[in-house]
């Protein structure tokens, strides 16, 4: 694996993201697979933040915890992120006359052969008579030069952004020149060595999980999105709001989460596709409505973007701690689907499935994502919609409508538990979508026999759904890297099991562990939970390892409940940080050795 990592750090608002995004775009266009990871604090300006780019000619899906270069906007970053550098790495900073107060730091520099470069940004900008914001291009230019990329590529990027403002463009070009000159004068023989670029990346997309999910929502034919701002779900709403004129969607910033989810239910009931998004705290407030949809059999799609809880927790960090909540929340017993995305690609593709399952089974669907997926920058092959719109037993044609009876709505006789659904405004017998226990037409019915019959009807949908769900995906390490494998495989040294955004680091880690028979079983559909494939694979594996981003090993708990699997090891991460390839490798190595 030829991976290069550059970490740009500084105070929030200083330009960290802007430099990160510019470099990312340029590098992808050059022919690299780029993975970008943002870290920042729960405040608006001044908090420490970072933007790390991992760059490779082959596919990568996660960050490495050690960087080849750290680019720091402020002195704080120099101290904080010094130890993120690999031996021989480059520290590029802009703090005049910096010296390390801590002798340990100085020692670290020397022992690890770190190259320190001071870029006199202020001075250069003053000379050019340019505003501080231009510093971003200057820094990018130095990085670009260190990467031995072409100046023209950077100029092209800048032209795209500022081409319509001539003076600004010229100033930007001047900054690029200065950056180039700085490198020549101060670091001519320093380079951040990239592998050869690979054409195939050039035309791929570079986007965040939230943007990909937004596109998935648009692609799935969703026409209404109602939500209340909450990190890390907000970027999804912001994206959908930004493109609303093109998409024609109704974007409603509701006054609270209950409004958001109720509007979504109302819109779904009326017959459009609608969705809402939130994080854990807002999701709690939606759980009563989820339960309502269980009994009224109204399709519902909720995106739950996880962050570390409980309470307000760590709002701008990542976690996979809400799985059991999503599975068991909401009073009473009712069918539901809980599924999880894991990267930009499936953030796009799975939204269609979420709506399809919601409509086919007339159930609430929770789509889990997390801060890591929502805000990381992925290089993905052109988003292709493999699914098609499936709306299940929705009756819209005149013939079908004319054959309906009110009692078809909740007919408990449906063997798979799924009864006909039709929409207000359809010329057909009417019914009551009922939140109380009800007879087949939605009328009140408090009898014991009916309660049992309707419970069976509804819970039968879980049985049907479980059979219809794709099994967990299996990835196997071979000489060509990691690949999806649908047929059986032979004996394994290590079987990894996980879900959600840890997938990226797990797959990357597997590729670092050539010469081992490692497989990864990835759960996209989490409730109902299919266990056959796991049991088969576990049977053939020397050792099974559960990997999750939570403290309890929540998927493990569910699996134990459903099929009594025992894991030999659990790698559980709950410090709020995105999982990194090298940390997973280290944990797995220890596991293998044990």
């Amino acid at each position, binding site marked *: 694996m030829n991976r290069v990592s550059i970490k740009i750090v500084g105070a929030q608002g200083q330009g960290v993201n802007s430099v990160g995004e510019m470099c990312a775009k340029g590098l992808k266009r050059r022919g690299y697979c780029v993975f970008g990871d943002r870290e920042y604090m729960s405040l608006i300006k001044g908090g420490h933040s970072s933007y790390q780019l991992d760059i490779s000619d082959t596919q990568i899906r996660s960050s490495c915890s050690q960087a080849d270069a750290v680019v720091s906007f402020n002195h704080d970053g120099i101290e904080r992120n010094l130890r993120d550098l690999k031996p021989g790495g480059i520290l590029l900073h802009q703090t005049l006359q910096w010296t390390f107060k801590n002798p340990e730091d100085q020692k670290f520099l020397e022992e690890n052969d770190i190259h320190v470069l001071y870029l006199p940004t202020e001075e250069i900008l003053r000379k050019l008579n340019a505003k501080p914001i231009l510093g971003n291009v200057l820094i990018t230019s130095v990085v670009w030069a260190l990467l031995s990329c072409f100046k023209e590529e950077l100029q092209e990027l800048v032209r795209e952004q500022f081409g319509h403002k001539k003076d600004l463009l010229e100033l930007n070009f001047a900054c690029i020149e200065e950056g180039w000159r700085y490198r020549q004068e101060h670091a001519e023989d320093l380079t951040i060595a990239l592998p050869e670029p690979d054409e195939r990346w050039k035309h*791929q*997309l570079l986007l965040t999980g939230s*943007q990909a999910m937004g*596109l998935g929502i*648009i*692609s*799935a*034919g969703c*026409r*209404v999105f109602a939500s209340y701002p909450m990190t890390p779900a907000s970027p999804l709403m912001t994206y959908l709001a930004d493109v*609303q*004129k*093109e*998409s*024609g*969607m*109704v*974007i*409603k910033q509701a*006054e609270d989460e*209950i*409004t958001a989810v*109720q*509007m*979504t*239910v*109302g*819109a*779904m*009931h*009326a*017959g*459009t596709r*609608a969705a809402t998004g939130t994080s854990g705290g807002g999701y709690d407030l939606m759980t*009563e*409505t989820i339960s*309502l949809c269980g009994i009224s059999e109204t399709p519902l799609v909720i995106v739950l973007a996880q962050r570390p809880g409980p309470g307000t927790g760590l709002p701008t960090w990542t976690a996979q701690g809400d799985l059991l909540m999503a599975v068991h929340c909401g009073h009473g017993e009712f069918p539901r689907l809980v599924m999880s995305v894991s990267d930009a690609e499936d953030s796009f593709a799975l939204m*269609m499935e979420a709506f399809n399952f919601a409509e086919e089974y007339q159930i609430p669907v929770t789509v889990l994502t997390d801060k890591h997926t929502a805000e990381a920058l992925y290089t993905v092959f*052109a*988003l292709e919609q493999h699914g*098609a*719109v499936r*709306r299940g037993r929705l009756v819209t044609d005149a013939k079908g409508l004319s054959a309906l009876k009110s009692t078809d709505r909740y007919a408990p006789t449906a063997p798979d538990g799924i009864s006909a659904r039709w*929409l*207000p*405004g*359809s*010329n057909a*017998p*009417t*019914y*009551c*979508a*009922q*939140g*109380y226990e009800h007879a087949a*037409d*939605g*009328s*009140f019915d408090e009898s014991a026999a009916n309660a049992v019959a309707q419970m069976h009807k509804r819970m039968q949908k879980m049985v049907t759904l479980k059979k219809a769900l794709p099994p967990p995906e299996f990835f196997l390490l071979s000489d060509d890297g990691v690949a999806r494998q649908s047929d059986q495989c032979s004996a394994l040294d290590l079987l990894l099991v996980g879900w959600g955004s840890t997938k990226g680091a797990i797959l990357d880690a597997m590729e670092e562990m050539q010469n081992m028979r490692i497989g990864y079983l990835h759960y996209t559909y989490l409730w109902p939970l299919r266990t056959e494939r796991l049991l088969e694979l576990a049977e053939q594996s020397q050792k099974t390892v559960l990997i999750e981003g939570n403290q309890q090993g929540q998927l493990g708990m569910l699996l134990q409940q459903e099929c009594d699997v025992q894991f030999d090891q659990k790698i559980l991460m709950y410090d709020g940080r995105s999982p990194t390839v090298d940390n997973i490798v280290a944990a797995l190595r220890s596991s293998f050795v044990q």
Partner: protein
Amino acid sequence: MIIPLSANGPAMNDYSSPQTCTWCDGCGNHGIWTAIKRALVELKLAPWQVLLCFDVGCHGNMSDKLAGYRFHGLHGRVIPLAAGAAIANPSVPVIAIGGDGASFSEGIGHLVHSIRSNYNMTFVLHNNANYGLTTGQASALTWQGQKMNTAPFGMPEATLNSMDLVFALNPTFVARGWSGNIKQMTAILAAAIQHKGFAYVDMLQACPTYNKFATHEWLLEHCYDANAEGHDSSDFAVARALAVDTSQRVATGILYQAQGVPHFSERLESRKGRETTPVDEVKQVDVAAFTERFV
């Protein structure tokens, strides 16, 4: 609302249901129920052309006592549920029905924001000034000093002046009826359903079982038809004063209506110029046009 006018509209019995009413004898819900059906019939709307959304409370027990597409949702949440439907399908008139407990306690935020959002829908408040279905607790609209369930000495909080609150939010339609006057309620409801925007309809409702203060008799004595007395419903300040002050008589009728204020969906930039409804538009969308900026 786009209300399809057809020469032969439905009859009252098209709205009837096989279920018999379960309200107490003398309950004002009977009257409101009749008026709702009548208004729909008068507007020539067939049951399949409307959506009635119900909150949880005694009023919600209406949900299977009439025909029409219906949704009986959660306590306190009927307004956003109905608003979502109204936004999704502007060609189906949406009527939300809720109690005073639901609307001024559990769900007051929704009421406040639906008025400022001016969703295109009708909201009918079954205002019996108490929590009927949970056996007579005080609501925010219960009169001071009344002994209620869980408030054996009267509630310690002050009674909320609902009309002053509603008018503080710049409503576009405010009416008040009372459960003993079906004819007037019918007229109010017909106007409310035809209103473009959020129509707030306060129906003072007798609850002989738990409300011993604003009884049928009291209402009969105090309510008067302000429109009949020449009230100009286009004057905001006059309407507000009339609505707020119920110390002597209680003005009923269409108290306020603003014409020509765009409703929520009309205010959306994203929907400008679209002829279809969100319900019509569900189909797979090619995102190629959106992905260019990510290359």
